[in-house]
């Protein structure tokens, strides 16, 4: 149950030469083609196994939403086909079919039926929908008095009232306020653990990484990369910056992970490493130990501005901490070709025992999106070990001062 097979899927929209061309084509079917096809998606092939969670990423216009519409059956493919087993719920457009003059309850009934539930099922699910949406007495008020957040809460609760075999999510993870986001994300995670197959389109790296076991990168209507989330997302991240003449390289790191390096190479890292207070280069750090991130940069071309930034990421690629010299108020200007620069960041490794990596970036202004000289994932990989602190869990080291009194 809950598998998706996409076979040679393609979608083209017809563009007729003139306004009369369509009529001509309809009336004289054998007189030749009078339109050209505008391909949005071409030759897409992939399979999502039952219980798998797959993310789809890509820039705007890459064809992500069209792909989801083809999979849910709203739009018909031009070539190829989609095979689906199991029930599907789609969080594409929350609140579609709601009518503002009717109460939340009435809308749940009608829209629920539009989503394929029966009236009896909705009656049965109603308490749970109300409960999850947490909109209180508003459920019996007309929808026009709802805030947009309340509408979305109700829509989400309805759309996920019953656990589907396949859940398709398009950017719907960031619905409502922070509290509801956590709650809705929790529900999706719960579904996943219970065996629901997930297909998610999102620009939220964290969300994709924490849910998905595989990521598909769409570029210009084709699958440009597919594989393990970290590698594909790093590649995508690099690609985002690669709108000019940048190059993206990926190679296997010593621990078997894929390292991505991208950029225009006007500035490059010559050496980067983590050092102890005694000046030893290390791969293993004690919890709370003072360490230094030392970076040597070479300048390959005259540059107006240079900012260095780094992110410390946990095993799953979640960013634990990140900063750059722009935020630290020490960007450099007017750099000459051939100059060498050394950065030294000293900090306490207030991290939980786990494996971490550092991604580094050389760019202009406050982010790498506009001018990316070099983005390097897995620049440094290190472990934090707990030797002399009391045991704890998590990636942050926040030792409390404890006072406890009895009676």
């Amino acid at each position, binding site marked *: 149950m809950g598998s998706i097979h996409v076979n040679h899927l393609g979608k083209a*929209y*017809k563009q007729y030469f003139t306004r009369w061309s*369509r*009529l001509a084509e*309809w009336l004289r079917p054998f007189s030749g083609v009078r339109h050209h096809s505008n391909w949005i998606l071409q030759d897409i092939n992939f399979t999502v196994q039952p219980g798998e969670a797959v993310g789809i990423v890509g820039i705007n216009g890459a064809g992500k939403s069209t792909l989801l*519409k083809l999979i*849910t*059956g*709203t*739009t*018909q493919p031009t070539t190829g086909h989609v095979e689906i087993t199991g029930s599907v719920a*789609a969080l*594409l*457009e929350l609140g*579609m*079919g709601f*009518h503002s*003059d*009717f109460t939340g309850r*009435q809308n749940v*009934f*009608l829209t629920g*039926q*539009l*989503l*394929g539930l*029966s*009236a009896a099922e909705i009656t049965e699910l109603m308490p749970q929908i109300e409960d999850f949406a947490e909109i209180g007495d508003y459920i019996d008020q007309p929808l026009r008095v709802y805030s947009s957040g309340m509408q979305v809460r109700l829509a989400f609760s309805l759309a996920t009232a019953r656990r589907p075999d396949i859940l398709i999510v398009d950017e719907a993870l960031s619905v409502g306020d922070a509290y509801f986001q956590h709650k809705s994300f929790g529900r999706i995670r719960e579904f996943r653990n219970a065996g629901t197959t997930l297909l998610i389109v999102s620009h939220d790296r964290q969300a994709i990484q924490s849910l998905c076991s595989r990521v598909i990168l769409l570029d210009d209507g084709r699958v440009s990369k597919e594989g393990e989330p970290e590698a594909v997302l790093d590649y995508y991240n690099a690609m985002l910056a690669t709108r000019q003449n940048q190059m993206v390289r990926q190679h296997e790191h010593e621990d078997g992970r894929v390292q991505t390096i991208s950029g225009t190479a006007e500035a490059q890292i010559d050496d980067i490493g983590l050092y102890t207070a005694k000046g030893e280069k290390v791969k293993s750090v004690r919890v709370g130990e003072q360490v230094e991130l030392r970076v040597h940069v070479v300048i390959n071309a005259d540059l107006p501005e240079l900012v260095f930034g780094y992110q410390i990421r946990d095993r799953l690629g979640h960013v634990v901490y990140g900063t750059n010299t722009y935020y630290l108020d020490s960007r450099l200007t007017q750099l000459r070709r051939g100059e060498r620069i050394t950065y030294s960041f000293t900090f306490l490794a207030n991290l939980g025992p786990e494996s971490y990596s550092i991604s580094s970036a050389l760019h202009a202004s406050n982010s790498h999106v506009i001018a990316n000289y070099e983005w390097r994932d897995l620049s440094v990989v290190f472990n934090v070990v707990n030797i002399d602190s009391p045991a704890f869990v998590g990636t942050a080291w926040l030792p409390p001062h404890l006072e406890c009194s009895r009676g």
Partner: protein
Amino acid sequence: MNNMVSALWAYRGFVLGSVGREFQSKYRNSLLGAAWTILNPLAMVTVYTVIFSSVMRAKLPGMDDSFAYSIYLCSGVFTWGLFAEITGRGQNVFLENANLLKKLSFPRLCLPVIVVFNATLNFGIVFGLFLLFLLLTGRLPGLPLLGLIPVLMIQITFSIGLGITLGVLNVFFRDVGQFFVILLQFWFWFTPVVYPITIIPEHFRGLLMFNPMAPIIGAYQGILVNGRWPDWQSLLPVTLLSLLLCVLAIRLFRKRSGEMVDEL
């Protein structure tokens, strides 16, 4: 065909709910609420009956009854109204629900079905009041009243076929919608609804043969004014045409429904 019907059946809850919602939404937030559903048609029936019979003293040639013209008028106008509502709304149904069609996956035929149910419901209220009036004034025809049922069925089939065909075409060629509004005007005045057929000059009367609505409206008038069973033979061509239109509509819909979503 079979799976189209079963898909519709699976969504019956949605169809019925939508009919109810559309019906209710007209009178939502009004003080009198559901009373308007009666008041509006009641006004229409009153205007056509009282005004035409007493104030204007309009007479139907060859009939002594002062209400004859009113009954003649009502039986044509209300049934024509049903036809105009189904086709008129049918031709816009896909355009109006573009958002729903583009974003959700559900049997598309639900939409025209909702239109038909709604129009029939509205018609049922007006026509029910009209029949009530006939009952109260003792002018209810006897058994031939049952003849209304098959004639209505033919008319609705004709309207559905035409409505869906226009609805699909209108998505691709918006001219269809504009054109049909004009055509409907001419069509109405080319059908003996307001005037008796005898007004049409003899040598033009043959042209009515090509008007499929003429025998249908004529049948209603015959039943309600003269208490006469419909002339089934005259209804045969329009029955065949209705079935043909329905087949055409389904074929057109099947062939173009995928492309339709791209055009909306």
